């Protein structure tokens, strides 16, 4: 049976339990806008009833309850949603950094409608045709030389700007690898805290939340996925090698190699291939996409130099000299320039098949390169136009990927927030319930106290 002091104790247990429950509610309200915070719940349970079952004490009406306690603090989280979110972040990270780099490439190759290399080529062929019509006109030859120089400038500046984009990507890769290393250390430290707390039987809810945030950012950077994702022994693997194993963290390092950026792990010093995440996207842009465009520009420049020079060699300048180049032979897109003889004197431009000043036959042949097949059955102009298609397709594939992943992420986020997010109205209701329960418990204590007072007054007087 329960004595009066038992009732006071029972009231006290209720006061404590509801105060604690209210503290949990306050924590929820305080963290309503904290990223990665999982809503918590104080789980209330009854205290063991007295007398314990199996004792021989004579009972009146059976067992009496002894109050309430907080038996645990529940963390609202679905671990499979976390895994989905990380997969999604890994893909999204790759698409978004690759798209950022490709957008810059696009603005180099197609600064605006009607401003691509094929337009510079058109101006170049136009200038040749004008010279073909009036080969003796020095003014038209100056125009042609300028058009040739500006075409060469365009190609060179494209290469230069693509290379400078690559340099900025290097910087982006290094900062992100540093961030990965910091995150690995953080996760290892959370692992340690979580292991200790769990060994002591406490719920390390806030450490779990913080670790989830770090894991998500890590997935966003590299696509690395954790194994054994609950508890203190979590490991994170990237390309089959650990970044984190329990309380141990391994670092990544990058060096620029001949074939591209090399990422190595301190785990065994081996190369790690990073396909996903922001780093994967940057590596793709740096070592696959941009080299592809540089290569295309080189192909274009090589064909331009070869085709124009071959015809130009056969022609005669106004000075009667033959066998000269128009573009400096052996140059690529990165260093294409006009031949020194042409630069020095426009009379060196070989417009004629013979030495006569009005002979524009060779200039006309060169102007005909506008439509002549030069690279794999396509004209130089068509090749330059195809470049727009290539960058456009690469870029729109990335944007499509971003859209799809963002949509998926929004869905996952919504499900996550549906489970783990804090609803202010809901918290307010629970808060009021705890408050009222606390008031009621206080009344219980007061009632018991008054009853004790009655006895003391009546018997003591």
């Amino acid at each position, binding site marked *: 049976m329960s004595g009066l002091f038992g009732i006071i104790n029972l009231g006290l247990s209720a006061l404590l339990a509801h105060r604690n429950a209210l503290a949990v509610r306050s924590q929820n309200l305080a963290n309503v806008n904290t990223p990665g915070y999982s809503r918590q719940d104080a789980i209330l349970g009854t205290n063991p009833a007295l007398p314990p079952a199996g004792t021989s004490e004579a009972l009146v009406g059976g067992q009496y309850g002894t109050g309430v306690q907080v038996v645990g603090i529940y963390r609202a989280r679905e671990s499979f949603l976390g895994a989905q979110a990380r997969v999604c972040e890994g893909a999204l990270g790759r698409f978004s950094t690759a798209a950022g780099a490709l957008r810059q490439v696009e603005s180099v190759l197609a600064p605006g409608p009607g401003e691509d290399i094929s*337009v510079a080529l058109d101006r170049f062929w*136009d200038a040749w045709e004008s010279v073909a019509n009036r080969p*003796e006109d020095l003014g038209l030859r100056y125009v042609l030389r300028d058009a040739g120089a500006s075409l060469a400038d365009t190609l060179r500046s494209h290469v230069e700007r693509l290379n400078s984009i690559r340099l900025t990507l290097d910087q982006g890769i290094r900062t992100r690898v540093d961030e990965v290393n910091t995150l690995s250390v953080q996760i290892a430290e959370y692992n340690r805290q979580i292991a200790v707390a769990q060994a002591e039987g406490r719920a390390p809810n806030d450490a779990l939340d913080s670790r989830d945030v770090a894991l998500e950012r890590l997935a966003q950077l590299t696509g690395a996925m954790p194994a054994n994702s609950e508890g203190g022994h979590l490991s994170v693997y990237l390309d089959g090698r650990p970044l984190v194993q329990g309380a141990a963290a391994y670092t990544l390092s990058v060096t620029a190699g001949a074939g591209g950026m090399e990422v190595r792990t301190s785990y065994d010093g081996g190369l790690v291939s990073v396909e996903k995440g922001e780093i994967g996207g940057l590596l793709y842009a740096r070592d696959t996409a941009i080299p592809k465009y540089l290569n295309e520009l080189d192909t274009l420049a090589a064909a331009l130099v070869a085709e124009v020079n071959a015809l130009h060699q056969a022609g005669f300048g106004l000075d009667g000299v033959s066998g000269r180049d128009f573009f400096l032979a052996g140059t690529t897109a990165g260093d294409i320039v006009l031949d020194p003889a042409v630069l020095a004197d426009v009379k060196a431009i070989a417009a004629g098949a013979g030495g*006569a*000043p009005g002979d524009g036959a060779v200039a006309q042949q060169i102007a005909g390169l506008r439509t002549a097949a030069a690279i794999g059955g396509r004209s130089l102009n068509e090749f330059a136009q195809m470049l727009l298609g290539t960058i456009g397709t690469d*870029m729109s594939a990335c944007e499509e990927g971003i859209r799809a992943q963002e949509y998926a992420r929004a869905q996952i986020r919504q499900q996550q927030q549906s489970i783990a*997010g*804090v609803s202010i109205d809901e918290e307010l209701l629970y808060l009021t319930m705890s408050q009222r329960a606390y008031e009621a418990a206080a009344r219980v204590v007061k009632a018991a106290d008054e009853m004790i007072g009655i006895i003391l007054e009546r018997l003591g007087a």
Partner: protein
Amino acid sequence: MRISDSMIAASLVAQMQRASARLFKFQEQVASGLAFTRPSENPPGAVQAAALRGSIAELRRYRANCDEAGVALALTEGVLAGIYDSLRVARDAALAMNPSSDAGNEALADEVHVLSERIVAEANFAIGGRYLLGGHEVLTPPVVENAAGPPPYEYQGDRGDMVVRLNRTMTVVKNVDAAEVLNLDGAVDPARDDTLELLRKVEAALRVGDEEGLEAGLEEIDWHLARVVSLRADVGTRMQQVELGRGRLEEGILTFRNLLSEVQDVDISEAVIGLRSQEITYQAAAAAAASIHRASLLDYF
């Protein structure tokens, strides 16, 4: 489904973002008049537009070539007309020979002399320092006096054809050279005199009253006149060809411009309607966001 505050906020933010992205897209279209400005917005369209712009540039070039050839041919036709007229007058002078008037014949001979000089001047016609009838030798007069003559004049051009491209497959020769017109150096018929030598002979026959010589000379003049006429007809045909080509090019340019417009230009009325309806959507989204966010239990506690 349980709804949390962060969910509402996130989805409102996402909706507002989407709405303003669409609004921005329409605004961009209306402002630029273009359906897309970056290749990634429409990769096949970008390639097509670039190819169309390239085709238009190519056709414009050919059109400029047509103008070039047309001007050169018109000038050449003028020169041929001048030579023809001079030859006609010289023929009349030869016919007007009067055996009884030495003084009159002398005057006719002087006239023929002047006419032959006029023909040389026509053959040496230059515009902007560029000789028309010298083939590729455009910087030197094609017909110069021959100090070691006869013949009295010699040709110093190279008889080169000035070829102008009218389109991918068609070319036209925009010049006629003096040797061909005047049979200089026996360019057309080695057995015959050149026009200037012939006129020199006619002039001499007039001075001495050589009727037989004049008779032969008249026949020769007719042969030369016939040559000039046939050359003029040839030049006329070429001019027609150029004009025809030019007309086709104009049509082609117009067609390609229409195609380009279809590929790259935005349908303005569609874009404006899209912009308006998107504005309304945006305002509705904003109003909904505001009203959801206003409702709170906090107002009742």
